[in-house]
Each structure stands twice: as C-alpha cells, then as structure tokens.
C-alpha cells in the first residue's frame, strides 16, 4: 500500500503532485468520485448491452408462434436474467454513477464521504455480474424462476439459483454501502450556506433513494437467505408441509420490490428536475412541493407492496387497503408532473437533446404511470396480472422513464465530464429513433396483455402473432438505435467535437457549472460559499 504523504491530504495546496497508480491499477484502486462514477456508468452500459442482447433473443423467439430459437427452460433463464441484469446491473448502477459524478460537484464537496468504501461499492458489482451471468453456464442452467424468484419453483432449480442468490447478496452489500456514502455525503459535506432546501433536486432525489435502498436491500437479503436455507438446509419458511407459506416470500420480496421500483425512478426524477429548468430558462416551479412529493412517494412506497399479489387470494380488506394505498401514489407523482409542466409554462425553451429526452420521459412515463393506475384497480388487475400489459407498464416507466432520463442526463452533463460537446445532430437522431422504436416495441404489448397473453412464455397461440411481430421489429430497432448513443459518447471521450465551455447551458444554475469543463480531477478542495 502506498504510504500517506501529506500532499494527498486535501486542503494542502492545489499543486499537489499525485503518485497515483496508473493504467489498470488506477481504476482498480481509485478513491476518486469521478473515476468511480465513470466506472459505474460504463459498467451499467455494458450490462445494458448484455441484458439487451437477452431481450433481443426473447423478442426473436416471440416473433412468431412455435419454438424456433431457444428451449423453454433457457427462455425462462433469459427472462430472469434480463430482468435482474437490467434492474440491478444497468439502471441502478447508472443512477449511482450519476450520483458519484454529480453529488460532490453539486453540493460543493471535495469527494464522497467514504472514498475508499466508494471504491468497494463499485468493485463489488463485477463479481456479482460474474456470478449472475456465470450461472447460465453451470450444470442445471441459470436461475429460471423470473427475477422475482418465487418459491417453490426457485427451490427446484439447480446451482444457478444459488449463484443468483449470492449475486443478490453482493449487489445488496454494494447498494447499501453506496447509499450510506451518498446519504453521509449529502448530510455532512454540503458547502457552507447550502441548506438542505437550497440543494439541487437531483441531490434530494438521491438522498431519498438512498434511504429507500438502506431500508429495503437488507429485506431482500433476508428473503433470499430464507430461500437459500429452504433450498439446502431443510427449513420450511416457504413450505406448507412444515407450516410455512410460499406467499410469505412474495410479501417479503415485494416489501423490497415496490420501493425498489421507486429506487429506479426517483434519481430519474431528479435528473429531469435539473434538465427542465435549465432548458426552460426558468426556475423549477414549486421546489418545496417537489421535495415533499419525493418524500411522500418514498413513504407511500412502503405501504403498497401487495398490489403485486392481488391474485394470491388475499382477504377483501387487504385488497381494498392495497388498492387505495397504491392509487394514492398518483397524487404526489401528479404533483411532480404538474410542476414540471408549470416550470416550462411561459419559459423560454430550447430543445437540445437533454431537453428532448426529458420531454420524452415526461410523455411516456405518464403513460406508464397511468397503466400503473389501471393495474392498481384490483378487479382490473385480476385480469391483467402476469400478462404483457404489466410488461408494457413497467417498460414504459423503466425504459422510457429511468433509461430515457439517464440518456438525457448523460447528454446534459457529458460536456462537463469530458470537456467536449456531444454531437447534437446524432444525439437528436438517437432521441427520435429511440422514441419511435420504443413505442413500436412496447405499445402493442398493452393490446397483447389485454387480449390475454401471459408473460414469461416462450410460445403463444396464434391470435397474438401480429402484435408480437410488430413488437419484435420495434425492439430490434430500439436496440440498434443505442449504437448511436455509444458512438456519440465515444466521440466525446475522444474529444472529437467542439470544446465545451464551463457552462454550456444558458439556463443551468447549479454549482458544477461554476467549474471548468472538463471538471478537474479534484474539485472544491476548498468549499465554495453558497448564498
């Protein structure tokens, strides 16, 4: 281990010369939030490609009725891993990547509160990914019980399921450490004068997300631990023969799972809340109520989990309670939507790529939110549960929601990260191509679900053929569109493009824009003073 000399002690002169490891070891050992943010974002993108490739295989198999490409069991593994990889490998790490890059810069902190632990939070992800993806290649095949891993099916599976369980444990540890870091950074390391209610909304959204993560990841760990002991040590948590109940797993899982979906969307809300005021050149409307809405969503998210279980045969009182509680979430979410619209109202808008993605987000997320509301209506959900309508719902909120927001966020901040402006033409092409392809791929799934196509099936009856074909075409188009994104990002990294000024966006107001572009390796070693 390198010895500590005082020039690595921040606050002791900016001309400090660093003898940091170089090459690969720089990335392996780094404690710098920008390096770690970069690694998170790349990891996320790679997982997006892996999960996307699985989705393409799923869509190809579903292009027409009959079994063409994969066997049913492998299909189930693909669905399972697609879900797990996209959620835990692509969306969550992307959000943490943004947090790492932006939070210290936005609150005027020198780095994250626990820089070394920050490194570990990231470096736990590759082993988890190895276990997850590796599970496909062990005897017995990968986990094939859906990303929800319901027992007793998941008790039947082979070694791949155990690897998945341990992967979930490791990812949970990573998320918990990451969240502790983020909360501590936000609570303790704000620049003088930056009160909580002056903090950029992106930081607020992450403060609340991190709280949700710390509250629910351990619960998921508990659930999969019980699954593990049921599988190998003869416990009966989920086995009626011993007095347990398979439905118990579902309760514990969704107690994690529902807050989890807000973990996926709240950071996206935060990014949108930065982009819209910047391009409307007008302060965010209703800052305080935006914060309260985030908090309200977070609190309500603990009370609605059983809306995923309307068909397990709950008592009437349970159905009513969980329906009402779920519907209530529309109120704070509505407040956010209205506030964004009001922010744009009488602004002076321009439509660069970040703004386009923000608008695409707003439009499509709202559709996804409304289908969520339809699903919240218990009697309707009884028809739609476990159909493609649900698949449509969650891709609207997660792909057109979270993912679009992250695309927007990348275009918004990449000038700051790389010092180079992105290629606006191509970025706009990426937007329009993604927008249209996304709807071609996922809108028909509503019809499929309504007409009665179950999810997680490798083959279907013939009346579902047309829409599946449309959907597959859209899915491939959507997937290919992402190469544009990759190209635009690589161009920025290679500095092929205009040099970015410190503040490329006229309407941007947050602290990171006071720094030069690209942001220096260490920033805010002396905290700025916020008035």
């Amino acid at each position, binding site marked *: 281990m390198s010895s500590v000399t005082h020039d690595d002690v921040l606050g002791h002169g900016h001309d400090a010369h660093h003898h940091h490891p170089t090459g690969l070891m720089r990335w392996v050992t780094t404690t710098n939030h920008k390096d770690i943010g970069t690694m998170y974002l790349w990891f996320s993108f790679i997982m997006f490609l892996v999960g996307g490739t699985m989705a393409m295989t799923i869509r190809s198999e579903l292009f027409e009725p009959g079994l063409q490409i994969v066997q049913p069991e492998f299909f189930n593994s693909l669905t399972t891993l697609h879900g797990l990889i996209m959620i835990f490998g692509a969306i969550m790490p992307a959000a943490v990547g943004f947090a790492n890059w932006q939070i210290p810069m936005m609150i005027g902190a020198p780095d994250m509160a626990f820089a070394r632990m920050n490194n570990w939070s990231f470096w736990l992800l590759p082993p988890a990914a190895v276990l997850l993806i590796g599970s496909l290649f062990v005897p017995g095949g990968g986990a094939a019980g859906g990303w929800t891993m319901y027992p007793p099916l998941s008790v039947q599976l082979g070694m791949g399921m155990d690897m998945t369980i341990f992967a979930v444990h490791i990812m949970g540890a990573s998320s918990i450490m990451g969240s502790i870091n983020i909360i501590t950074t936000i609570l303790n390391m704000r620049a003088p004068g930056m009160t909580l209610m002056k903090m950029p909304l992106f930081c607020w959204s992450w403060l609340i997300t991190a709280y949700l993560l710390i509250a629910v990841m351990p619960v998921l760990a508990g659930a999969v631990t019980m699954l593990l002991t049921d599988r190998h040590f003869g416990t009966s948590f989920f086995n009626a023969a011993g007095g347990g109940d398979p439905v118990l797993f579902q309760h514990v899982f969704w107690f994690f799972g529902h807050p989890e979906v807000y973990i996926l969307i709240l950071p996206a809300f935060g990014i949108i809340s930065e982009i819209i005021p910047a391009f409307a050149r007008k302060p965010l409307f209703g800052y305080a109520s935006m914060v309260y809405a985030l908090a309200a969503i977070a609190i309500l998210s603990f009370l609605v989990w059983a809306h995923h279980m309307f068909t*397990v045969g709950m008592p009437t009182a349970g159905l009513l309670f969980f329906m009402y509680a779920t519907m209530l979430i529309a109120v704070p979410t509505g407040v956010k939507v209205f506030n964004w619209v009001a922010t744009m109202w009488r602004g002076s808008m321009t439509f660069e790529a970040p703004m386009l993605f923000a608008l695409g987000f707003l439009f499509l997320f709202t559709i996804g939110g409304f289908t969520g509301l339809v699903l919240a209506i218990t009697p309707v959900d009884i028809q739609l549960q476990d159909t493609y309508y649900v698949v449509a719902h969650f891709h609207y909120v997660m792909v057109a929601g979270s993912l679009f927001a992250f695309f927007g966020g990348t275009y918004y901040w990449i000038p700051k990260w790389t010092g180079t402006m992105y290629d606006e033409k191509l970025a706009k092409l990426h937007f329009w191509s993604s927008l249209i392809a996304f709807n071609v791929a996922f809108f028909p799934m509503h019809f499929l679900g309504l007409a009665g196509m179950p999810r997680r099936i490798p083959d279907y009856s013939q009346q579902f053929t047309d829409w599946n074909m449309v959907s597959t075409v859209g899915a491939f188009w959507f997937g290919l569109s992402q190469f544009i994104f990759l190209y635009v990002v690589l161009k920025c990294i290679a500095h092929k493009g205009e040099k970015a000024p410190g503040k490329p966006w006229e309407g941007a107001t947050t602290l990171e824009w006071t720094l030069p572009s690209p942001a220096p390796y260490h920033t805010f070693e002396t905290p700025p003073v916020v008035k």
Partner: protein
Amino acid sequence: MIRNCRGSAPPRFIGRALAALGALPAAALAAPAWNFQTPVTPIAREQFDLHLYIFWICVVIFIGVFGVLFYSLLKHRKSVGHQAAQFHENTTVEVVWTVIPFLILVFMAYPASKTILALKDTSAPDMTIKVTGYQWKWNYDYIEDGFGFYSTLATPFDQIENRAPKDENYLLEVDHPLVVPVDTKVRVLITAGDVIHSWWVPAFGVKQDAIPGFVRDTWFKADKVGTYRGQCAELCGKDHGFMPVVVEVKSKDDYAKWSAEQKKALAAAADDPHKLWDQGALVARGEKVFNANCAACHQASGTGNAAAKIPALVGDAVVLGPAKAQIDIVLNGRNGMPSWKHLPDTDIAAAITYTRNSWGNKAGEGLVQPAAVEAERK
C-alpha cells in the same frame, strides 16, 4: 376463433404490412386482438366496464395535461422569441392540483371497491370444483359428484416444433376440458401440488393463484354456452407456456348427461386396490405410467440426467432394494423428486414394478402390489 374485439376497428394494416414483410401466409393472420375478451360472467363484465371507465378518465387527464404542455412547447420557446417569466411558486395551484387528482381517485375507487366485494363473495355456490395445478397439467375434482380427471395440453409436439401446421386453437386445447353448466354459480377451490400456478379464464374474469399446501377460492357464473380458453398465469417452470385452461360451458341438460356418463365411466374404470396383479400385466401398465409421468426426468431409458441431478434408475440401489423405501420416495417425493400421492395406488404400484423389472433391473422384491402402496399411505 376465441378472439373477440370490442370497440372500433383494429388497425389491420399493421398486421397486413407485417404479414407481407415476414412473407407469412396472410390467411393465418386475422385482425389483431386488442382488448379484453368478451366477458361471459357478471364479474368479467364489471371488470371490462371498470377498465374502460378508468381508461377514459386517464385519457382525459392525459389530453388535459399534455394539451397544456404542447401549447407551451409551441408558444413558449426561445425560437419564437418568448422571454422566460421568473415565477416559481403558487400555493393555490399546488393545492388545487393535489386535491383534484385525489377526488378523481375517489371516483375511481368507489366502483372498484364494489366489484371487489362482489368478486370475493363465494358464498352459496350451486356446485364446487377443486382445481389442482401440477407441473404441467390441471386436475379437476367434482367434489359433490366424486369424480375427477387431469387436463393436459393436446397440441401435438410437431406443431410446437414447426413441423406441422398449427391448428386454430394452437396451445389452447386440452385432452379433457373442465365442463360446467351454464347459469350456475360454480365455486372453485384452487390449490397446487408442486409449485405456484395460476388458474385463469379471461372470459370469466377469474384468475386465482394455486398455492401448494393452501386452498384458495373464487367463483364464476357463466351465462353463455361455449368453450372458453385461458392459460396458466404464473411462471411454473419449463412448460409454463404449455398449460392451458379450457372450460366448456354446457346447457344444464347437456351437463347432466355428461356428468352421468362420467360417473358411469368412473365406476367402470375404477381399479380395486386389493386386486392381485401378475407381474407381466403390472409391468405392461407400469410402462405407460412411467413414460407419462416419470420419463420426463428419469428418461424412458431410466438413465436419469446427471447434470440436472436426476438419478439413474438403472441399477439404482433404491430400485433394487426393499420395496417399502421406493414406495415411500415415489409417494412422498424427496428434494427434486415430486410426490406422486395423487396417482392411484395401482398406477404407482405399476410404475414401481416396471422400474424393478426393466432396463436389466432385476429386483428381489420384483412385484409390488397396489395393496402395498395403499398400506404406505397415511
């Protein structure tokens, strides 16, 4: 076709365009389905209406919100020279747009609650049927009448593997559909034997998870004679996609006739568990039972599948050992080995006898009589 569209004309052109694109016989494709199937029970009808009601409210809100937004996008852009205002707060509007959505939700929740109360009301049924899900078939038990049967996918494998043209009810056809009388309140008790399944008939508005070890109930009262098709709606392993639910709703007379036939057939086919079989006959029967139930895992050749941790039965110690131990495993299952309690004693005895005398196996206790199985049951 079971597909039924309600509402305006579906966009056939997309289907057509794709049919051409994929060079598929257009004849195989009809208008794409895009809403709930036509309901035939009161609950399904309520669900249908509720869905449309919620849907239209959402559409109206959507148009309202995005109408404002698009107006703003057109008028309040920099390129048309609009100057940004600087307001950023207004408590009144904030309260308004918190309260109004809340009120809208109340209007949604009210009819929904009424439907929930109705669909949970399983009291006073005219008949009761027990449905048990297995990997990958359904078992139907007519509790009052004392007969029952299994219902398995009838689509031939050749169609699934694209070696034969798919027929109209591809994947939605079974050997023995559930048969019920029209205009009768049927209470359905649902459970499962291995993993969670979900019994779903869209036209009835019934979807109920089948939880192993627990009994859940639901009900329906179909008011139209016909055949209604659904599928298992909970991932249950490899053949989850091949586990259809088919219900035939018959007129009351036809139903009475059908059920009388069933009872007669049942009496005729019943095996006396105390009958003493000779080994040849039992092995012959056992081969059928084995290939229908056990070969999926242990293989028809009895060689198992080492990768999936399925033991070979050829030369297996349990198979060659005392019969009691084997009966115990087959009856009760162990780890990955399912329990076969639900099979009749004679079938279990036959399968066991078959394993003990096949593929070169020559067990000491070669012949296992049904009575021995009966004795092991508790």
